[in-house]
């Protein structure tokens, strides 16, 4: 095991608001956390880093009272805490913003925020006016511009995320836990969140911040703790670390190259889209993708990137416009037809539209190819499927005890590899990847990038949607930027940078297009 270096020296004389000592937690068959420690100083942001499955989320759930540890101690402001449930933690002054959103869609924003704490009037009924005013003053403090009476179901994912954050802040807790709060936020909203965090920090709160995004860590964190395989690895001030060191500690090895983009000969136009419209969602979308090319799709969340992918793949057929494959116009009205024409779509939301959670790894991998070549009449050719799935598993180095393992038991990165494998088995010519590395750890991320490079070498045309600008910049030959359902510009690999992408992504006025 690597040397555990709890560098207490860094914090001599520090004022710890939260201390975790020797915590261990085992689930049936898996030791999720072993001998873990963590010390959070008041008035700081403490980043927790580690690959998926490193135990960060489990530790946070223990601190938030969701799980009860098998052993170990949690001290809040020096006093030992005994938590029997999330409510205990909230009452003690620990609030958590969960990775999954836990809001009630048919209730208003105000009702969601103050649930269980509704202000009452003299008759013991909910005082709606007061609740409304409380929400308004909370929003004013946080700079959120939303009507407290709006039903949550009308909000975007990012909007819901902001409500979760507001709700956590409203508890006036001493410790705030944020588990990947930016995963569904666009850059502008992330800035907003960071302003809120800075404000909380100056009030002396302790903020635990889980993220996979390196740039965020250096922007916001004071201290960093790194976990690997359920063990505490290292803790230090953010200013004393480099991103390479962090990655090395996280994976236990060096990840030499994050974006192994190679120059690949670019061939003929494979997919050509002209004036594609989906009423009310996007309009006048025109672009070409060539064999061997990676076309990056950038834009804020809600700009219509995912909708274009779904329309190309026949999930939501367009209301007008033309799609041509190899110069031949095609009408694609279902995913099945899209697949017959050589398209594949890795969807954005792994859990919602990708995984069959209750089924095995192999069943998840084989589901898109149960047709030509893999079936004899109505029967599936199981031995051939077994063989090909095994090969795919090797090729993508999926880490799983067996192909019969339930996919829910795999880490996010491995789940994603299985889904990529599902689509590679269909031998696509046009591969659409929607957030291919979301919620995936650094090691798997690099592997996925390498794989994409390999695919374009074989002449596959790739459309890659990503909210991570470094990924888009690092991988794409060309970048199409969108804003509110319209293309605002194309940028070549050499001219593109974070600044001009963000300019296009937030400007409704389309500058002259430089489409090739």
């Amino acid at each position, binding site marked *: 095991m690597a040397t555990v270096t709890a560098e207490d020296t860094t914090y001599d004389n520090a004022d710890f608001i939260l201390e975790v000592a020797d915590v261990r937690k085992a689930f049936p068959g898996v030791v999720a956390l072993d001998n873990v420690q963590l010390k959070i100083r008041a008035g700081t942001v403490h980043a927790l880093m580690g690959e998926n499955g490193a135990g960060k989320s489990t530790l946070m759930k223990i601190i938030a009272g969701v799980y009860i540890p098998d052993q170990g101690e949690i001290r809040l402001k020096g006093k030992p805490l005994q938590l029997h449930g999330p409510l205990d933690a909230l009452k003690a002054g620990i609030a958590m913003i969960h990775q999954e959103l836990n809001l009630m869609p048919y209730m208003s924003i105000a009702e969601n925020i103050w649930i269980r704490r509704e202000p009452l009037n003299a008759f013991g009924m909910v005082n709606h006016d007061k609740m409304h005013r409380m929400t308004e003053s909370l929003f004013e403090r946080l700079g959120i511009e939303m009507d407290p009476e709006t039903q949550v179901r009308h909000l975007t994912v990012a909007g819901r995320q902001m409500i979760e954050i507001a709700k956590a802040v409203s508890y006036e807790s001493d410790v705030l836990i944020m588990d990947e709060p930016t995963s569904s936020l666009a850059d502008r909203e992330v800035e907003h969140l960071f302003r809120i965090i800075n404000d909380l920090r100056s009030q002396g709160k302790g903020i635990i911040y889980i993220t996979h995004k390196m740039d965020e860590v250096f922007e916001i964190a004071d201290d960093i703790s790194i976990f690997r395989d359920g063990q505490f690895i290292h803790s230090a001030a953010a200013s004393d670390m480099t991103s390479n060191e962090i990655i090395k500690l996280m994976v236990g090895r060096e990840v030499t190259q994050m974006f192994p983009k190679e120059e690949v000969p670019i061939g003929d136009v494979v997919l050509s889209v002209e004036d594609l419209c989906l009423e009310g969602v996007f309009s006048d979308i025109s672009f070409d993708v060539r064999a061997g090319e990676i076309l990056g799709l950038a834009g804020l969340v809600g700009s219509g990137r995912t909708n274009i992918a779904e329309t190309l793949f026949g999930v939501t057929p367009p209301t007008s416009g033309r799609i041509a494959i190899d110069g031949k116009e095609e009408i694609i009205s279902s995913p099945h037809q899209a697949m017959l024409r050589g398209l594949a779509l890795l969807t954005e939301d792994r859990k919602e539209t990708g995984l069959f959670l209750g089924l095995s790894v192999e069943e998840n991998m084989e589901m898109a190819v149960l047709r030509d070549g893999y079936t004899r009449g109505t029967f599936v050719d199981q031995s051939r499927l077994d063989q090909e799935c095994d090969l795919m598993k090797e090729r993508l180095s999926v880490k799983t005890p067996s192909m019969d393992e339930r996919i829910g*038991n795999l880490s996010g990165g491995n789940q994603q590899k299985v889904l990529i494998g599902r689509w590679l088995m269909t031998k696509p010519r046009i591969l659409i990847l929607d957030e291919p590395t979301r919620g995936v750890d650094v090691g798997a991320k690099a592997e996925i990038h390498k794989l994409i490079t390999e695919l374009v070498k074989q002449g596959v045309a790739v459309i890659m949607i990503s909210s991570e600008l470094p990924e888009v910049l690092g991988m794409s030959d060309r970048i199409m930027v969108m804003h509110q359902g319209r293309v605002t510009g194309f940028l070549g690999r050499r001219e593109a940078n974070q600044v001009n992408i963000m300019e296009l992504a937030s400007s409704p006025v389309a500058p002259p297009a430089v489409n090739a």
Partner: protein
Amino acid sequence: MNNTMETTDRLEVIKKRKKKIPTEISIFLVLVGIAILFEILGWIVRGDSFLMNPQRLLIMILQMSIIGIIAIGVTQVIITGGIDLSSGSVLALTAMVTASFAQQSDYLRAVYPALTDLPWVVPLLAGLLIGALAGLVNGALIAFAMIPPFIATLGMMVSARGMARAYTDGQPVSMLTDQFTWIGSGANPVIIFLAVAVLFHIALKYTRYGKYTYAIGANPQAARVSGINVRRHLIMVYAIAGLLAGLAGVVASARAGTGQAGMGLMYELDAIAAAVIGGTSLAGGVGRIAGTVIGALILGVMLSGFTFLGVDAYYQDIVKGAIIVAAVVIDQYRQRRRLKAAA
């Protein structure tokens, strides 16, 4: 590099060490346990053996085989995440229609006096067709009108029972041909039940039909994006469930030698109970035919055992209800554990 590998391996080894007992085996053990319990109670209460009586065992399996045929269709419906409440009523409707095409020519009050003494295939096909049609309507309502399966099949449950009664104004359809009643004679229902079970075991495990069924139950959206025609498949699944309810209607009327509108009352609930006791999850995506067969046998052993011990039918129902609830409680518990493992 080595460190990570070692720790990952260690975690995986721990995972592997936890040997999972297949659900079917544990249900089978429950079945054996219940049988042994009745055996012991039998010696204590009646001084007689419960198991050492081939006659009783055959009757027990015969009783269960009709519900078992329905339960197989219901199992695949539940695997897609749906439910079928109409199978008992569809059984009654098909029993009526089938019987009306199987009457003897010397019977003066035949439903279709011109269509008597027909070969056995005609009533059989008529029954299967009616059942499949009823299922098709269920499926179309669910897939295209987007009605929840519970409501669509509840409607069919009420309507089909009404149609069964209206068909002959509530009169039983009797005096069936010998070649038709042969279908339900002796151990034939058991043979049909087991043949259907084997067929659908193979279909669910080794065919596209089966794989798609599990996929839709596990995640309909992902199934659609994987190129599966979810609507068409759902219609097929409900139509096949109806077809099997129809087959059960044929067997039931052949065995009873009559078609009666009151047949199959509450069979849909026994069928769902058999599937659920057998480990099929109401949340969809999980379930096996073998489990359902054992689930049906558990219901059969309970029924037969209580009768053998002389327990009143009312008390039998009380216990049966408790067992169904217990099975769902266990299903919920299993699901929670699954979710936890996935988290």
